[in-house]
């Protein structure tokens, strides 16, 4: 009995020692990586100590100077809500534009992704080569960030919302195509086999056997992507591609502190409202 306990104890200790050595090695490697990346990214303690108070004062300036007694006064009184949000009409319009850009881009991206996703699904692709080709294509579309697309497209389509919409569309087509293809790969293949057995063509089988099954999934992914694209669309204006981003870029450049705070608060509000609506819709779609 005591022998058993002793051997168990020994095994436990050996196991613990081994885990500790492994943990120590992992810690050393992690520490070395952190040190190297801190040096490369110029994050020295001196720079941090120097930068931290400046960052804090900067963010403190963004907080509006609201005073309770005059909170609901007009735009002329300093410290009132109206004074803080004095250009709310313009900002609300720009935010609406941003959300519409995101909606149109998501829709267009989904329309592009739809025909690409079926050949990119391993279980439906007629040939292995076709599957690979479409997968690579989607990867290529997805891998370039939408801001980079926007930088390039602003050259050819000019400054304005169109460049932003197309940039988000291209990136969205890549991400949605991959998600769609994965949904198709998880679809039940029996309806497909049934249609193939009665002599339906590939297109007919996709339309009547697979598409009805995956449509709720597709819609839910599109809504999810729409939420992400609204966030993306708020910054795509930084490179001149329309929406609230252009305005935000200019107020940040001119150091209009209170306006930065106001716009960011509005963005957060709009994004959370859209998130909530879209989440409710998604639940309804899935059910």
């Amino acid at each position, binding site marked *: 009995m005591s022998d058993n306990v002793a051997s168990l104890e020994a095994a436990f200790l050996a196991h613990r020692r081994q885990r500790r050595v492994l943990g120590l090695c992992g810690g050393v490697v992690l520490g070395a990586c952190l040190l190297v990346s801190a040096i490369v990214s110029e994050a020295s303690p001196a*720079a941090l100590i120097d930068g931290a108070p400046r960052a804090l004062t*900067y963010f403190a300036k*963004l907080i509006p100077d609201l005073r309770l007694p005059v909170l609901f006064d007009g735009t002329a009184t300093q410290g009132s809500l109206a004074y803080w949000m004095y250009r709310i009409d313009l900002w609300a319009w720009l935010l609406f534009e941003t959300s519409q850009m995101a909606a*149109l881009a998501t829709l267009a991206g989904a329309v592009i992704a739809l025909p690409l996703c079926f050949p990119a699904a391993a279980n439906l692709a007629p040939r292995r080569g076709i599957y690979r080709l479409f997968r690579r294509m989607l990867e290529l579309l997805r891998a370039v960030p939408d801001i980079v697309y926007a930088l390039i497209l602003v050259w050819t389509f000019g400054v304005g919302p169109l460049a932003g919409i197309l940039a988000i569309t291209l990136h969205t087509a890549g991400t949605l195509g991959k998600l769609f293809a994965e949904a198709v790969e998880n679809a039940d293949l029996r309806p497909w086999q049934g249609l193939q057995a009665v002599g339906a063509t590939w297109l007919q089988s996709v339309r009547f056997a697979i598409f009805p099954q995956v449509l709720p999934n597709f819609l839910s992914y599109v809504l999810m992507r729409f939420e992400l694209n609204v966030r993306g669309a708020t910054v795509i204006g930084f490179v001149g591609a329309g929406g609230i981003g252009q305005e935000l870029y200019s107020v940040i450049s001119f150091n209009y502190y209170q306006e930065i705070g106001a716009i960011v608060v509005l963005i957060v509000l709009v994004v959370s409202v859209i998130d909530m609506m879209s989440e409710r819709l998604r639940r309804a779609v899935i059910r």
Partner: protein
Amino acid sequence: MDDAALRARYPAVFTRPLLRRCGYALGALLFGCWLVALCIWFEITPARLSHGVAGLFVILRQMVPPRPGSQWLDILQGLAESVAMAFLGTTVAAVIALPLGFLGARNVVVNAMAHFSVRRMFDGFRGVDQLIWALAFVRAVGLGPLAGVLAIVAADIWMLAKLYAEAIENADRHQAESIVAVGGTRLAVIRFGLLPQVFPVLLAQVLYSFESNTRSASILGVVGAGGIGLQIAERIKVRYWDEVSFIIILLLVTVASIDTVSARLRRRLIA
């Protein structure tokens, strides 16, 4: 039974009810109006589209063959900066987010009101995009990769805290209860009852966020926050398209290799 007879016998299967058909038609009409209105608003005309696409093809033709250009050392340095920014930023954010994650978990902070407000706070901060943080930090601490690191930290904390909180809420509560049963404090419950269970999941989420941050760290340079983004933006400004395509390919390779390594690590952690 032939087709016509079937139609006569089961009309409901072959045609939709009138009301629903009207509903669909109305929906389609509204959708069409919305599309047309947006096209007019954003000045999306066929002429503009074809003109732009033609310009795009000119650019694409100039992109091949990709060339590293004479300043390829800067490109490599930018790439290293991007990866380093993502690594440092993710690690710091992962550490800061840990206590916040426990604060946001319903089985740690039981008060519904507190739980709700903490989670809404995460959601609110998550609504601010990384590039906005980057632009603000560039103004606050100056141009360079440090602003990028801080932007990644500031944007990633809330994302990770939310993911952590969800993972902690999904933890098995029996282990925590047994710690309570032997008289452990609340801190002991978290340390010995919850943390060992959720740690691999949390690490997997950190790795996942590292992958996504390497992608986003590559564009922070567009607003001056260091990394390869600055190199891309500069070359696009002077229309060195062959070097732009070179950087994009380099970026794809880097991101893909980091994804592979991280996916392997994640699989080992979860298993």
